[in-house]
Structures are given as C-alpha cells and as structure tokens.
C-alpha cells in the first residue's frame, strides 16, 4: 500500500534533471530577446563613452545621440533616399523571383536548356557586380533600369539554384505515381514539382532579399550621379564629401534597418507558407 503510494507520488515528482531543464528553458526564452537588447545598449553606451572621454570631434565620430538627432532632422531627405533604394531592391527582387523561378522551370523541363544556359548563370554569379556595373551604365540609358539590372544579377542566382534543386527533389515514387495516373507535364509541374520546390525556393528568397539590397546599394555607388531620385548609397557618398558624418551614420543605420526588415518579412512569409507541413517550420515536440 505504502509502496504503491510512494510509486504514484514519485511519478509526479519534478526530478532534479527536469527542474534544471525547465530552468534552462526559462532562461533561454528570456535571453532570446533580452540578450540582443542588452548587447546593443552596451555597445551604444560604450561608443558614447569612448567619444566623450577622448574628446573625439563629431565630424570624425558622432555621438549616438547626434546620429539619432540627424536621423530626425534630415528625415525628409533620408526618407526620399530610402524609398528610392527600397524601390530598386523590391523591384530587383521581384524580377529575380520571376527570372530565377522561370529559368529553373525551363531547366527542369529540358536538360538541354540547362546544359546550354547554366554556365552563363554561374559566370554572372561569380563576376563581382562592381566590375560589371560601370559597363551596364554605359550601355543602359535609364539609371533606374541600370540599377535594377545590377541588383538583379546579384539576387537571382540563389533563387535559380535553390529552385532548380527543389524542382528536382520531388519524391521519385510520387513521380512514378503521377506517370501511372497519366499526369500531363503541366500537372506534374503544378501539383508535384512546384510544391516540392517551395521550401528550397523560400530559402533562396531569404538570401536573395539581402543580396538585392546589397546589389542596389553597390550599383548606386557606381552610378554615383546625384540629383532628385538618388538612393541611400548616394546620400552616404554626398554626406562623406561634405564631412557630414552624422548623416552618413544615419543613412547607414537605415540601410541596415531595411536589410533586417526584408529578412524578417521573408522569414515570416516562409513560416506562413510552410508551417502546416514542412519540417523546417515545425515546432519539435519534446
């Protein structure tokens, strides 16, 4: 009697290992958002202290407060520049998605097309965009189109290679099944290959999002010309010429912010499309 009672109680005892594990989980949950905030806050505070204690003038390294002030004061200029860069980035990403997925589908439809064109895709990818950009701006009249081409060159390859891999990764037995039931090429593509490629495509898209931003910023540097409709990179260049270092920092902050937002948006998209069925988006049951 007492033995069984003891046994029953023992089942509900939170043993030391379980308690430690629960503590670990609580710490991790807390640390996930608290640690990055603490580290960033400490960095900013350290940055401020270094300037104050060394009497560094603001035209060499501005204090964080001044950067924030500039961000607010120059907001109209910066916002315009931000929108220009953002427009190039989003357009380039859209064209990269269309071009990358389209080429990947063509590649999987015909081995010969893949053999013929894959080398060009690789060459475009491995050639640094800074070295192609000047040529592009010679041959393309419109600056917007030139920027778009540069950003596209950088962004489309991860989408192409990932989507090609995904389209070819459809389960072999499922392919047989589709053949047995007489599926057309189009049905096979739409119902089997494209869904199978979706997780791979989304992985490529997340990389491409960041690359599209890098591509458009680099292209802006190369294009260089100012005036209305110039992006954040040109704002940085121009502020550099004028030794307006706080504005350089403010623009840099915006570029980094845009990059983070793009990454988060694409991560959310990925989760939204995959969480129902794909391993990568599933919570593991302990």
């Amino acid at each position: 009697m007492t033995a069984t009672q003891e046994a029953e109680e023992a089942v509900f005892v939170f043993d030391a290992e379980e308690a430690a594990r629960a503590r670990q989980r609580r710490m991790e949950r807390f640390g996930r958002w608290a640690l990055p905030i603490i580290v960033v806050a400490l960095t900013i505070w350290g940055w401020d202290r270094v300037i104050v204690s060394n009497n560094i003038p603001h035209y060499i390294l501005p204090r964080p407060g001044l950067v924030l002030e500039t961000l607010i004061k120059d907001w109209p200029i910066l916002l315009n520049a931000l929108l220009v860069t953002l427009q190039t980035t989003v357009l380039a990403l859209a064209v990269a998605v269309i071009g990358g997925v389209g080429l990947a589908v063509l590649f999987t439809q015909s081995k010969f097309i893949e053999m013929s064109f894959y080398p060009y895709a690789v060459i475009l990818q491995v050639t640094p965009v800074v070295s192609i950009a000047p040529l592009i701006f010679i041959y393309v009249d419109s600056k917007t189109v030139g920027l778009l081409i540069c950003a596209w060159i950088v962004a489309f390859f991860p989408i192409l290679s990932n989507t090609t891999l995904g389209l070819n990764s459809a389960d072999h037995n499922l392919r047989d099944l589709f053949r047995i039931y007489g599926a057309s090429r189009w049905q096979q593509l739409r119902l089997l290959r494209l869904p199978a490629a979706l997780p791979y495509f989304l992985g490529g898209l997340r990389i491409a999002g960041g690359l599209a931003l890098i591509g458009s910023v680099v292209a802006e540097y190369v294009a260089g010309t100012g005036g209305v409709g110039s992006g954040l990179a040109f704002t940085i260049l121009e502020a550099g010429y004028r030794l307006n270092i706080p504005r350089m920092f403010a623009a840099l902050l915006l570029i980094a912010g845009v990059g983070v937002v793009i990454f988060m948006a694409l991560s959310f998209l990925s989760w939204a499309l995959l969480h129902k069925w794909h391993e990568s988006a599933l919570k593991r049951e302990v």
Partner: protein
Amino acid sequence: MEDLVTGAAQIPAAPARSRPQTGDGAPILSMRHVTKVFGGKVMALEGMSLDIHEGDFVSLLGPSGCGKSTALRLVAGLIRPTSGRIDWGGGQQKGDIGVVFQEPTLMPWATVAQNVWLPLRLRGKSFRSVEADVKEALDLVGLGNFLDAYPRELSGGMKMRVSIARALVTRPRLILMDEPFAALDEITRHKLNDDLLALRARIGATIVFVTHSVFESVFLSNRIVVMAARPGRVLTELAVEAPYPRADEYRSTPDYAHHCGAATAALHQAMGEG
C-alpha cells in the same frame, strides 16, 4: 484438407490455379514470356508468364534481386518489356490500376483528402464532384475522420492506410502493392494485413502483392508466385486454398503453418538456385 496440403507442398509444383472467387474465365492481366534487360546486360526478369484473374490475391515472393519489383513496374507501365507481351483483359491498351508503394508516398503539403483526391484530380475531376468517393475510400481504411489532417500528423500505419485509400479511390480493376508494410512494426503489420483482407472482401479487389515475408504471403494470398534471383524468374507457384475471409485465427491453424513451411522451402530453393 489433407490433399490440399500435400498439393501445396509439391515443389516445384505445376502452376496451380486456385480461385475461390469465380470469374468469367478470361484473365484481366496476362504476362507472356516477359523479359526485361537493363542496360543491355543486366537480366532483371526472364521469361515470366502469369495470368491474373478477377478476385485473385497473388503474392510475388522472393529474395531481393528476383525481379519482383521489376515485374510490378512492368505491369504498372512504368517500364516496357524487352521481349514478351503484357495483355490486359477486354482489349485495353493500358491497365486500370491503383498502386501502393513501400513508402506511403504522400504529398506532405496536401491534406489527407487532397492526397486521396490526387488520382481523380489528375483525370480532371474537381474535388466537389468526387468528394463522396474520397470520403468513401477513407472510410474503407478507417480514416473517415482525418480528411483535413496533414500526413505529418499521422502514424506510419495511418499514412499507409491513406496510401491504400488513394489506390482504391479510382476503383481500379487491379491493385499493385510493392512491399507496402515492410517498413512497419510487426503489430501494425498484422493489423493492416487483417484490414486489407477485410477490405478486399468488401470491395472484391484483385491484388498483386510483392513481399519478402513468407507469413504475410501465406496469410493474404490464394496464389504465391515464388521467384528466384540472377536472373529474376518465376520458380514455382503455390496455392493457398484456405477460404476467405481469413481472420487472425487463421495464423494459428495447422493449415497456415503447413503453407508457411512449404513457402519457406520454396524460398530456400529459390535462394539456393540464385
């Protein structure tokens, strides 16, 4: 009973034709001296002849490399014979078949109902128009309440049931099963074997079942085609004349034990020759 047992024990036996269910006589599938050579040098299957009649449950039993999966792929039309003929009853060009693979082979991005809908969808049927058929097929395998579940939410045995429902949904004349339960644990496997026979009794399906399990083949089939390897070929055919329905109790009868012994002996012979 006694002579049934001895009849099955003769090795090699003349191809026995035992059919508890009476058909109209003409086979629904007829393979004549079918040979398949891969790459001009690997003889995967040599001179296989086999007639499948309405209501048959035929097991292809043999060691790996005996060409049983090749035979199934030939029947499914996924590959063509190097020589020989495969004829379908009623002068059809192509078999009206359903297939169950060793893996459940479900689309992970689609719900259970969408997976079962697939064969009909590929024939241009909208979900609305075949919803009742999809539901019925899932009811038959006991998953009528899981229409909106995703495959990842199901156990291995349940996934296999969905796969079987998908093969049933077109009401094919012949169902091909390629070691469907090989990856499952013994308990689940027994349960699915029982259920498969119950299902067969309800819908009167004709089944060709590839397996390397003697016990499974004896329990399920009325005909066991024993195959040997290198080159893959038919060694002998055994008849299991025990009447359907066979329940779990059949596994403890002397008749079952005897057939298992006979099939094991035939399999040993197949491996010795291979």
